[in-house]
C-alpha cells in the first residue's frame, strides 16, 4: 500500500511541475487534472475514500469544467481553430496519458490486491465524516453554505452585462 502512495506522490509532483511550466492553458489544465487525480489516490491510501471520491467529483469534475469553460470562452475565431488542430498532435496528450496510465495501473492493482482497505486499517469512511460534519461542525456547514451563496451572488453580479447585445439571439 505504501508503494502506491509513493508512486502517486511522484505522479502528483511531476504533473504539477509540468503544469506550471506549460505555455498553453489547455495543456496545463490536462496536467492539473492528472495532478488532482494523483492526489485523490493519495487520499485513498491515507484512508479517506470519501474525500478521494469528492476530489475526483468536485475538483477534477466541477471546478476543472469551469476552467475549461472559461478557456474555451476566451479562445474564439481563427486562433481557436489552430489550437484545436494542435490539440490533436500526439505530443500534446502523450504526457498526461502516460501519467494517467500510471494511476490507472495503481487503480487496477488496488482492485486486484483485494485488500480493500487503507494503510494500517485506519479507514474513515463517509459515515464518520458525516457524523462529525453534522455534529460538532454544524455551524461550519452553515457558514460554508453562506459562503457558497456569496460566491454565487458575486459571480452573477460580475458577469452581469448592463447593455446586452441585441443581435445575439
Amino acid at each position, binding site marked *: *500500500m*505504501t508503494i502506491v*502512495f*509513493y508512486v502517486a*506522490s511522484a505522479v*502528483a*509532483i511531476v504533473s*504539477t*511541475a509540468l*503544469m*506550471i511550466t506549460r505555455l498553453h*492553458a489547455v495543456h*496545463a*489544465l490536462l496536467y*492539473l487534472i492528472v*495532478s*488532482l487525480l494523483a*492526489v485523490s489516490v*493519495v*487520499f485513498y*491510501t*491515507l484512508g*479517506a475514500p470519501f*474525500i478521494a471520491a*469528492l*476530489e475526483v467529483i*468536485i*475538483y477534477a469534475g*466541477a*471546478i476543472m469544467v*469551469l*476552467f475549461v469553460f*472559461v*478557456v474555451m*470562452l*476566451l479562445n474564439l475565431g481563427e486562433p481557436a481553430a489552430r489550437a484545436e488542430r494542435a490539440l490533436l498532435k500526439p505530443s500534446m496528450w502523450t504526457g498526461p496519458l502516460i501519467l494517467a496510465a500510471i494511476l490507472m495501473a495503481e487503480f487496477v492493482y488496488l482492485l486486484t490486491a483485494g*485488500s480493500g482497505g*487503507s*494503510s*494500517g*486499517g*485506519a479507514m*474513515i469512511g463517509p459515515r*464518520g*465524516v458525516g*457524523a*462529525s*460534519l453534522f455534529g460538532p*461542525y454544524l455551524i*461550519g456547514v452553515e457558514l*460554508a453554505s453562506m*459562503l*457558497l451563496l*456569496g*460566491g*454565487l451572488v*458575486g*459571480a452573477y453580479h*460580475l*458577469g452581469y452585462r448592463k447593455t446586452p447585445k441585441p443581435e445575439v439571439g
Partner: protein
Amino acid sequence: MEIVPMRDGFILAGALFALGLIGVLVRRNVIFILMSIEVMLNAAGLAFVVAGARWRQPDGQVVFLFILAMAAAEVSVALALVLELYHRYKTLDTDAVSRMKG
C-alpha cells in the same frame, strides 16, 4: 500492511504547495495563477487529511470539505473577474491591471 509515515505525507503537501507558490510568483497569465492557487489549496487540504489519518479522527476530512467549498466559491468569483478583465483589456496579463486608480 504498513502505515504511510506522516512525515512523507507532509513532504508531499509541502512540495505541492511550493510548486503552486512558484507558479503564482512566476507566471503572469491570470489563468495560470488561478490554477496554481488551486494547487496550493489542494496541498493545504492534503496536509489536513494527512494529520487526520495520523490521529484517526474525521476532523481532517471535515476541514478538507470546508476548503473544497471555499475553493469552489473562490474559483467562481475569480473566473467571473477573468472574463471581466478580458472584456475590458483584451488580455489575460495581470501586468495590464497593475495600476490602481485612486
